[in-house]
Structures are given as C-alpha cells and as structure tokens.
C-alpha cells in the first residue's frame, strides 16, 4: 500500500503529480479521497471527473468540508487529494441515497442492508463512511451497522462545508464522486483484503459533570423535558445566564450518554424560535413528530434545546464539559494505541468542527503528534468512531484509523504531549467559569450571580471563540525539528519582566507591542529562511540546521534582528529582547542550556549571548572525581567524620603560641584525610552539603573550646555561612552563653563575592557585641574594595599566604607586607596582623622586620587534631 497526499493547486499541477506517481489500476485498487473546502457542488464533481479521467478505474471518494487535514496539518479553505494504491487489497466504493423518492428518510435497517449489499465482503476491514447532516438517523444507522457487519471498523462522519455556524446545525455538506453529488446520500469506501489490517480509535476530551438525568419528552431532536422539568431551562441554569446572549457557549457543554461517558451529544440552544421554525411543518420528515405531539404549541417562541442526535424518551444523559486535561489524556491514549500498530501504511483522521470552534489550538495541537505522517482527512460535523469494539456516531471527537498491508513506520511526534501550554492557556479561564457555574448550582440561586458573571464570560468567550489564528509553530514543532530535521542552531528570544510592563501600560499598548514584536521576528525569519517558533508568550525561538547555516552567519543574522527590534520600538513600548544563541542543541539539552544561559545573562546583564551546549561540560574523569568527592562528603557527614585540626598561631612579640586556627578535614572509610582544597568547591556547588559541613565543624570547635580557659580559637566563616540564619543564630546563642566569648575569633574570607556589606557589617557588630573577635582572612587574595575592608572593624587581619610565601624572592610581595604594616600604624586602631604560610626562618625574619604581630605556618606548628595541654 502506498499513500500520498496533495494539496490541490490547479488541474495542471494535479495532472503532473499523477503522471509522476504512474498510478496503474492493474497493479492494485486505487482509492482517491478528495476533501474540499473550496469547490461548490458542481465544481467538485467536475474535479472528480477530471481525476477519473487521469486515473481511469480509480475509486473516487469526495466530500465537502470546512478544513482539510494533510500530513498532520490543518488548513482551512483548501482541498486535499489523497491517493492510496493497494498492493493486494481491494477497495469498493458506493454512493447510496439516504432518502427515498418521496423524500422520506430510508430506515436505518434498510440502509444497512443496502450498504452491506453494495460494498461489504468477507474480508472488509475498514469502511470509510460519509453522510450528510440531512439524515437524522445517523446514530441508529451506525449502531445497526454493528449487527449487520460486526467485524468492519468504520470511520468517517458528516460532511460540512465552509459555511459553519455555532448557532445551528446547517446540514449543508455534500458528498460526491465522478458521477455527481448529493446532500441526501451516503458515500462508502470499503477496504479489505487478506493482508489488510486496521486499527481505529478516537479521542474526545469530555469530562462528565453532574448527575444522571433522564429524557422524558422530545419533539424530534428537540429535548422538551428532562426528569419532567423544562429541559432548556435546566440546561441554561447549568451553564449560566450568558447562554442567552451567547448560545454558542452550548458547544462547550454537551450531554453525554450515561452508559458511555465518551460519546458527546451536542446541544443547540435557541430562545428566539418556535417549534415550527425548527421543524418545518411541510417537510415530510417532520410530519411524524407533529403527529406524535398533537397538543404542542407549535408557534410559541421560547427557549429550546436541540440535540444533534436522535434522542429518545427514556435515554439517560449526563452533563459534560470539554476540558483540556481530558483532551490531553485522551489524545495520549489514542496516540499510544496508534503508534503501536505495526502496519502503519496509511492514516485516516477526522476531527470535529466543534473542537476547533471551542479551543482554537486544540486541533492544531492534536494533529501535531501526527505531523510528518501521511495522515489525511478533514473536518466533519459529527464523527463515526470505533469505540470498544463497536462503531458509534459521536460528536466533538477526533477519530483516527490506521491501515496497512505490510509492516511500516510513520514519523510520529510524541513531543506534542510535552507541550500542552497552548491548550491550557485556552482553558484556564474556562475552568474558572466552570467553578462559578458549579458554585451557582450549589446555591441554586441563579438569577443574581448571573449578572456578575456576565462580563467575565463575554471576555472569556471572545478569547476562546474568536482568537485570531497565529500560524507560528510551537515548542513541540521545534523539538521535532531539532530531532528529525537536525535544527541544532536555536536562538531563544525573550523579553523579561513583562509583568511590570502591565502595571504601567495599557493592555492595548502591550498587545500592540507584542504583535509588532512577533511580526518583526516573523518577517525576518521568513526572509532569511529560518524557522520561527512561539514557545511561550513573549518567548520566541528561531532555528536553523547546522548543515545549512554556519554559526557565524547565524549569529550575525540574529544580531541584525536584535537591532531591528531595538529600532522599531519608537511607537511601541521599548522592550529589550534578550537573545541567546544555542549551538549544537538536542531535544534533551536545549531547555537546560537555555535556563543556565539565562541565569548568566541576567546576572551579568548581557542581552546577546552565544552558548555552545558542550561548553562547561566536564570530562569524564573530573565528573567521576566529583562524584567521589560527594561520596566522601556524604560519608563524613553521616559518620561524623568532619574533623577539626588545629594549627597554632605564633605570637612574634611574646614568642609562643597565641591562639589556634581550626581547619576542616574529612576522613573517608579508609581513614584517608581530605584537605579543604579537594572538597570545598564541590561542597559549595551543592550548597546544602557545605552548610552541613560548616555546621558540624563549628559545633565541634565550640564543644571543644566551650570550657577552655586562656586559649583562643579561630573559625573560618564564609559569606554563605553568614547568610545562613540558622547557623548564625546558633553562633549568637552559643556566644551569649559561653564563659569566655573573647576566646572565639571568626575568620571571614576576603576573597568571597561579598555582595551585601550591610549584612556582613551587621554580623560583625553583633559578634563584637557578644564579645567575640573578627579576623579578615586571606587579605590580598581578592579584588575587594579596600574601603569595605577598612569599614569592617576587624580585630585581626591575615595576609594571604601567597604573598607571604613569595616575600623573600619577590619584591612586590614584600612591598605589600610593608604596606599593610604601614597601614596598621596609620589607623591607630588595635588591629593585629597575622601572616600565614610561614615556612622558614628567612620569611620569619622578613616578617619581624616589618613588625608583623603573628606568624602561622609549618615553622611553628603543624595542624593536628589535638592541642597540647587541652
């Protein structure tokens, strides 16, 4: 089996296409489906004849529609021609009347019999069936088909035309083939054969709400009473008073049959018609209804609800609501089933017009899972679906059949299911509305709240029903292009802080700016041959494949686009679009890379950024090393192996150890000792690990020195620790209780990114209040503002080891020591200078020459877990 779809452009193009395909009925039956939204009845027949001439012997199956589905995309006002050439299977088509010569509908049983005689054979698998809205017994006809030919799956529906209305069922559709057209007929195409296998399923998206009710009186398709009460009024109360002004709202709230949750019955609400307006007395078809209701006031104008199914008295119904989450889950289930079908040679898909009117994005979204497959079909007014082994006529559903003779694969797009934002957006306001309705129902006091709802509903409806259709592909499309078409150069464009814009400018102004923003980008992308995607409101992506565009060209184009966007902001709100070009992206990494790039852009205030996804990635060895370190840290935390070491600090004046610095060490299960240099960076990057280490370390040091007399200890603190309120509170509490707070010195690292000096100074002051001391650690290793350092009234200043270590060979280092020493004399405050990394006598003598107060290093003391005399 082989299937190809054409969008109809002209007869000559069609001729050319057919000649390329070299269709030959001798090689197998050919089915040519035509779904047209651009041809009138006679034109359509003319087209069918033309096709029949081109491919003599082909089976032509034509229907009118409002929009076509081709290659997984929906296009209104187009015509699609789909050619299926069978290998061994057979196709039979027939166009049968549904009304007799007296214009009386043919009873469903008779119709079933006629259909069976015309097209059904033993090995028929799938029957493509199209009727027109004029025949009201569709539901029972389809039901009866299950008895007449139980093994045949059916797909199809009611043809509609480009005339569509939410307010009434127009029944204007027609079906045709090369021999003519009719709006009172049934068109069939039965596909069968030994090797042919078929699978059909559907998705609806109707959520059932409320209790079961029973139809107690009807007039034709009009439901007069439900549970003995006025049906129209009951229905209106359930939805809200808005229904009177916007009767099309009824499309959102169908009924469903109580025995089958998924089959919606669409309801029409009118309040300006009489029974005779709805059911023409002169029509033969309606005479029976008038005969059944001799007493009815046929001319009284009042509200009525009419179903599009032939609802009978005694039928049990439930109220339904078309709900986005349900649409998603139904579609996902449908997709799974379709995807798993092995012989996926040809896909048929039909979708209800009601869905497109209710949710502007629903159809587009549903179909996006089938983009790149050869799915072909159209929009219908009601569908024939295969549900749980039975064919049934439904509304507001998406039906799909997949058929084939040989195993085959289609390029499905499962990414569609991870991008449902557009649907959710559509639905958000609707849900709110539903809540209100529920509330209202609960109160049963409906008249007052109706007015309050009115404005909201109007806005909401306008948005839902009349959103202008933007044809920009979405994130799912982007992911598919990345995956299947190798679009690995993506530029993410975003405008941040649009929320603050809303507080200043009018909505109108913002909308205008937004539209301009999109238009600019769209025009540019089109001109340059790039593809543009709308990821979210204000967030655009522009993509190109690396095999077509060099990165440098792509970047310069994006820079040009950014300039365009800046320039065109005169009449609109000035926006600053942020551009982030991501190179070498895959479906898996594009989001995460963009997020990390965005953080960086925000932090550094960059508006244009180029990022390679490989950038900053660690090699395998360091990743392994990292994990090992994390394990060591975790082990140390869990097994209490955070061990404070102490190194004595030598008093150069008194010539003895003055106090000790506590240094963190970790021990692993083998007893190996780890130095901070090997684990602190990893711990910092995991934040919480660092906090745990810090807390354990401080607690241990505190415990050791809680009761010690006369020996001071210094403890390292980072700015992260100072921001950790829990830890800081613990320190404060400890200091306020301890016997000698002055024994505790807190060393603050100078080289950390101190972004909030106020906070630091507050901390320092509090420490001083409590009687403890402060030391500035690693002074001279960072780029800190010296003024800040001076303002922190520290008691000690520790010169960075890198300066001390070199002071004998390097003149500059020595000068720095001299400078610090001199500064100490100048300020006249009691600050003591510590030099660390004092490794030999030469250094020590230099330090003494500059009158440095303390020395710390291997020359005097080696760090050890114990302290002599403690």
């Amino acid at each position, binding site marked *: 089996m082989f299937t190809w779809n054409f969008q109809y452009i002209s007869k000559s193009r069609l001729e050319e296409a057919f000649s390329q395909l070299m269709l030959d009925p001798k090689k197998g039956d050919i089915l040519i489906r035509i779904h047209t939204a651009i041809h009138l009845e006679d034109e359509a027949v003319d087209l069918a004849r033309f096709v029949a001439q081109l491919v003599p012997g082909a089976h032509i199956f034509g229907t009118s529609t409002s929009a076509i589905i081709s290659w997984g995309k929906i296009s209104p006002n187009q015509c699609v021609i789909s050619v299926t050439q069978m290998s061994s299977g057979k196709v039979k088509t027939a166009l049968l009347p549904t009304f007799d010569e007296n214009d009386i509908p043919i009873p469903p049983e008779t119709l079933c019999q006629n259909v069976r005689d015309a097209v059904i054979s033993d090995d028929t698998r799938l029957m493509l069936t199209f009727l027109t809205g004029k025949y009201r017994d569709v539901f029972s006809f389809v039901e009866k088909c299950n008895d007449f030919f139980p093994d045949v799956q059916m797909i199809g529906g009611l043809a509609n035309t480009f005339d569509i209305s939410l307010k009434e069922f127009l029944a204007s559709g027609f079906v045709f083939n090369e021999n003519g057209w009719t709006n009172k007929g049934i068109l069939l195409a039965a596909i069968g054969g030994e090797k042919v296998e078929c699978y059909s399923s559907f998705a609806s998206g109707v959520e059932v709400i409320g209790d079961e009710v029973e139809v107690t009186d009807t007039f034709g398709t009009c439901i007069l009473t439900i549970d003995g009460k006025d049906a129209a009024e009951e229905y209106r109360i359930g939805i809200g008073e808005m229904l009177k002004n916007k009767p099309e709202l009824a499309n959102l709230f169908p009924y469903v049959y109580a025995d089958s949750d998924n089959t919606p019955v669409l309801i029409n609400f009118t309040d300006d018609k009489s029974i005779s307006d709805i059911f023409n007395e002169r029509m033969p078809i309606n005479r029976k209804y008038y005969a059944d209701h001799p007493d009815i006031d046929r001319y009284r104008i009042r509200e009525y609800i009419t179903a599009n199914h032939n609802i009978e008295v005694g039928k049990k119904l439930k109220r339904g609501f078309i709900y986005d989450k349900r649409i998603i889950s139904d579609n996902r289930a449908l997709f799974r089933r379709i995807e798993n079908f092995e012989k996926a040679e040809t896909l048929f898909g039909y979708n209800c017009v009601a869905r497109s009117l209710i949710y502007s994005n629903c159809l587009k979204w549903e179909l996006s899972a089938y983009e790149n497959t050869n799915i072909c079909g159209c929009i219908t007014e009601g569908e024939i679906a295969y549900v749980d082994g039975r064919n049934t006529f439904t509304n507001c559903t998406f039906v799909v059949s997949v058929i084939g003779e040989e195993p085959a694969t289609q390029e499905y797009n499962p990414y569609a299911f991870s991008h449902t934002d557009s649907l959710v957006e559509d639905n958000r306001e609707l849900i709110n509305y539903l809540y209100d309705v529920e509330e209202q129902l609960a109160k049963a006091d409906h008249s007052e709240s109706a007015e309050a709802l009115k404005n909201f509903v109007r806005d909401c409806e306008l948005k839902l029903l009349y959103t202008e259709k933007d044809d920009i592909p979405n994130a799912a499309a982007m992911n598919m292009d990345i995956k299947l078409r190798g679009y690995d150069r993506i530029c993410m464009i975003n405008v941040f802080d649009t929320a603050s814009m809303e507080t200043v400018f009018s909505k109108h102004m913002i909308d205008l700016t937004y539209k301009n923003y999109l238009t600019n980008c769209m025009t540019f992308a089109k001109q340059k041959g790039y593809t543009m995607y709308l990821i979210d409101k204000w967030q655009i992506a522009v993509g190109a494949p*690396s095999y077509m565009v060099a990165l440098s060209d792509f970047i310069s184009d994006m820079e040009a686009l950014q300039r365009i966007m800046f320039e065109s902001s005169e009449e609109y709100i000035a926006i600053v679009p942020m551009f982030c070009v991501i190179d070498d992206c895959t479906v898996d990494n594009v989001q995460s890379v963009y997020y990390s790039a965005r953080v960086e852009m925000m932090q550094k205030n960059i508006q244009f950024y180029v990022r390679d996804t490989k950038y900053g990635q660690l090699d395998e060895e360091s990743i392994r090393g990292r994990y090992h370190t994390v394990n060591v840290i975790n082990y140390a935390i869990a097994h209490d192996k955070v061990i404070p070491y102490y190194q004595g600090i030598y008093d150069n004046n008194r010539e003895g150890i003055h106090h000790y610095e506590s240094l963190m060490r970790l021990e692993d299960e083998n007893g190996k000792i780890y130095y901070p240099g090997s684990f602190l960076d990893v711990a910092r990057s995991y934040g919480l690990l660092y906090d745990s280490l810090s807390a354990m370390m401080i607690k241990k040091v505190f415990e050791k020195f809680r009761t010690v007399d006369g020996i001071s200890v210094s403890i390292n603190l980072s700015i992260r620790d100072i921001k950790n309120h829990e830890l800081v509170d613990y320190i404060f509490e400890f200091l306020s209780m301890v016997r000698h707070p002055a024994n505790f010195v807190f060393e603050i690292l100078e080289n950390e990114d101190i972004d909030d000096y106020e906070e630091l100074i507050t901390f320092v002051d509090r420490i001083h209040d409590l009687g403890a001391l402060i030391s500035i650690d690693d002074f001279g290793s960072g780029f800190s503002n010296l003024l800040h350092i001076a303002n922190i009234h520290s008691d000690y200043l520790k010169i960075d080891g890198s300066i001390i270590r070199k002071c004998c060979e390097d003149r500059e280092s020595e000068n720095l020591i001299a400078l610090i020493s001199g500064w100490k004399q100048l300020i006249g405050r009691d600050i003591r200078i510590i030099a660390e990394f004092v490794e030999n006598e030469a250094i020590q003598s230099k330090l003494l020459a500059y009158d440095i107060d303390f020395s710390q290093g291997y020359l005097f003391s080696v760090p050890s877990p114990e302290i002599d005399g403690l």
Partner: protein
Amino acid sequence: MFKKNAKPRVIGIILEEIGTDFSKELIQGVVDAVTDDRSVRLIVLAGKYLNPEIDSANMLAYKAVYNSIFRLDEICDIDGLIIHLGSMSTRKKKVIKTGYSEKFQRIPKVFIASDIEGETVVNYDNESGIREAVESLVNVNNLTNLCMLGGRDDNIDARARKQIFIRCLQENGVSFFDRNYESTDMSENCVDEALRLLERNPEVQAVFCVNDSVARGLYEAMGQKGLVPGRDILVFGFDNTRMAGEMKPPLTSIGADSCTLGQKALEVLLAKLDGKKPYSAFVPTRLYGRESMNYDMYDYTTMEMLNVNPSFIYRMFDDCFYRYHTSRLRREDVDLRRLYFEFIFRMLQSMKHRYMGPEEFHSLGKMIDVFFEKGAMEYTDAIKLVKCIEKLQAAMNSQPRSPAANIRINRLFQRMKDRAIYSLSVQKTVEHDLHYENVRMMHDFMVMSSTYGIHGDQKPDIVCRNIDKLGLTHAILYLFEKPVKYDLTSRLIFPENIKLKCILRDNELYLLPKERQQCLIKEMFTRNEFSLKCKGYAAFPVFYEDVLYGVVMCGLVNNICDRGEYIAIQLGRAIYLERLRDSDRNNDNYPIST
C-alpha cells in the same frame, strides 16, 4: 591545562622544498591540525635541495645562499620541530642526528617519513594501501603483469614500498622480476626511466609509482608512446596529493586514511611537548580510486540505494568527499556531511515515493547550492564526484520507477554535476586571475619602489612602504642592520640583532618606528607582532646574489608556498637597488635636483 593568554608555542616545520605537492599537503595537514585557541604558531623553514648532478654551479650557489634559512632553526627560539628531510642527503641526516648545536638537540623533534634511529618518527603505514591496490589489481582485474617505478634506495619509504609491493604480489601468486622495476629520483623528472620501463615491458598492465610526482613523469612517457593511463595501462601513485586529482586523467593514489601525516606529526609533537612519553606513529593508508585505475572504495548496491539506507548515503559521502574527514572541521561551520545526507536522502526518498513536488524540487536545489557554496569541492575532485553521481543516476534510471519524478531527480543530479564541473573551471579561472593579479602586484611594487626621490623626496625605506603591494595578507619583514655576506667557504654567522621593519596584518601595513625595530634574532619567531589571525608563517630569505638582507615571514594563506620564493627574490632585488642608490647618493654620485 592550556592558559588562554599564554604565548603560543612555536613549532617549526623544516622542509627541503616548500613548493612540492608533498610539502604543500604536509603544511596544510599541520595547519588543519592547529586548534583555534592560538596555542600554536607554525613557522615553516624550507630550503632547497642541492643536486650537484643536475644543478649548474650558479644554481648551486643560489641554493646555498637560500639554504642559509636553515640557520634560523638553530638560533631562534623554537619549542618543537617537525622535520621532513625527504631527499636530503644522508650526510645532512647525519648532521641533524648528531646535531650541529647543543640547543638543537634539546628541542623536541618529530621526523616525518624517516628511519633515524632513536628519534620520534611519523611514517606512512605503506602496507595497508599497497595491499588494497594489489589485491584489487590481481583479484578483481585479473592482471598479472605489474611494474613499479621506484625511488632512490636511500629513501626509506621508497625501499619499503618496493618490498611491500613485491611481497603482496608474491602472496597473490604474481611473480615480479628485476625487469619489472626501474628506480627514479622520486620527482617528475623520470620520463627516461619510465620510457625504459615501458620498453622493457611492452605487455605491462599496471604500474605502481612510488609517489604522485613520479606518476606525472610516467604520464609524460606514456603520452610519448601514445598510451592512455587507465585505458591502456592502469597507473596508481602514492601520497594522494591534490595534484593527483588534477592530473589528466586523474590519478588513482594511495593516501592517508583517517588522518594526514601533518596532523599526526603535530599531535605526536604536542604530546611530546606536554611531557608525555614520546612515541612513533604510523598513519594508515588506503587506495583512492580515480580514472587511471578504477576502484570503488565502497560497494554501492542498487538495493541499498533504492531502500534509502542512511548509512549508504554517509558511506557515499565519505568515499566521494574523501578529504572531508581528515580536514579540520569546526562545529560552527556548515556540516557538509549532514547536508549531503539531507538532500540525497530526500531525493532518494522521492524516488521511492515516485513523487517530487515543485516546492521540494526547489528546496533541494537550494540545499545543493548551499552545499557547493560552502566549499564542498575542496574535499573532492570534480571528475570523481561526477562519476559518482552518474553511477547513482544509472542505478536509479535502470529501475522501472516513475519517469516524471525521475526527471526532477535527474535534474538535481545534473545540477550537482554542473556545480562540480563549474568549480573546476572556476578553479582554473581563479588560478589564472591570481597569476595575473600577482604579475600586476609585482609590477606595482617594482614601480613604486623605483620611483624614489625623483623630486628630492627622501622618504627612507621606500621598499618597506610598498610591501603591502605584494599581495601578502599577513607578513613580517626582518632586515639585518648590515647585510650579511654569504661565503661558501666559511660558516655563516648571523648577527645577534635584527630589525623588525614592517608588519602586514590583514593587508594593513604598519611601519615600526626606529626605536621599536630592534629585535634579538632569537626572538624572531616569538614576537607578539605576529597576527593572531594567522596560524602559521613561512620564512623566506631575502637576498641578492650572495648578500643576505633579511627574512620575510609570510602568513600561510593564499598560495604562499608557490609564490613566496618569487616574492622574496623581488624583495631582495628591490632592496639591493635601494641600497645601491643610497650608497650612490652618499658618494655624491646621486643627481640631486635643486
């Protein structure tokens, strides 16, 4: 870890000749292997091969002066050396081995195509390619009468290739006699040898040439005898140089498979510089089939094509654009391999589906255009590509498919062929234009540097001021304070200092003020003035007769390997004339207008 702003490592490439195809290929290979992080600066030092048997006394003198360029590798700071001695005499090898200076011994070195014991060498793995060729000739073409045009016995590759060739023949049951062999000097000057071989073996069916240059000589000899390579006698060479693809008919040649000699050499040298254990490496080879001996590197089956097997398309690309995978490719650039896959895949898919719409046709045409605009022809020979496409077309057209769809596909293939052939003609035109451009530039330069002082205009350094007219994109001119006279009898001593006169960066000329010109000669290659945009430079001596004026360093762009020597000579002449005039004026012989 490489530090971003550290000074680049200076890697010298020492060659006997810069203009040979082998040298050009080697230099290109090394340049391709240099990363974009500016961590390496290449300096090519190429001399002249002295051949007392052929060269006249004057020529030998010229070459001797020219070869003083080799002194630079001893005195200048260089971090590592890649050395290709080629046909340098064994004596020279000995000199290098024992080392004429202690410093030279210390520098990490990698020798290419060499057998010097105890040194790091990068050689061709001759065997794999020769075996492939012999097996194809004997087993596929059923040939039994095979000859070889070999090289000199002092050349390690020549020896090895001969041995392997004979061994492979014997293993395949084909005998090889002394009369089947003739040795050459491994250059194209081997027509006589080739003729002798042909005379001796009138029934010869295939000839293996020790390298591509020798094949050129053989072509000439065959032409004289009215024989056509590929039709009358199958010919294949070695090295797979660009010249092989441009010969008529294109020459089948054995060449590097996964990476080129240059790439491997740099890789090995950098590893050595990083303190890793030095190791010698072999570059695997394989046979690249062209007209002179039909050979399919991969089998294409019609089934694969009709089933649109993706791996088939990639294989076809690798075969056809065989230079692509050894080229240094940057991710930022257009991925031609993927692009090729995309449009061929869609074309074959259309063939399978029997339909190609005009939109698809249009978009595929555009992709093909991009493919060629982005330099696809750099990686293949036009004739090879055309052949390859024709094979595809033949396979496609032989199938009873839709003729209408096939017309479009055939038109796309035709477009590819057109672009391939067009590129061939463009290449010729560009070569011609370039030649003309060079002549014109040289003209401008000579005119400008001769117009000095007509109206008492006494601008000094008129030569330096006009260097930008030479068409060098990047260049640096070093001149000695005083010219150095070359003396054949004694060892040349360079002064310690040299003057950096002027710099060309991106065609912009910068003249250095006097106080900044001073430069230690040993720092010649490490100066910061080198343009960062250029990965490497070639050094050419600037001299006239036996007087050396200095060195011009030319960026490794354009076709500097071919033009450099000529430019340097003209520069030398211009400087000679300038100095001559200056000295005349100083001697008051200069007619000064009043």
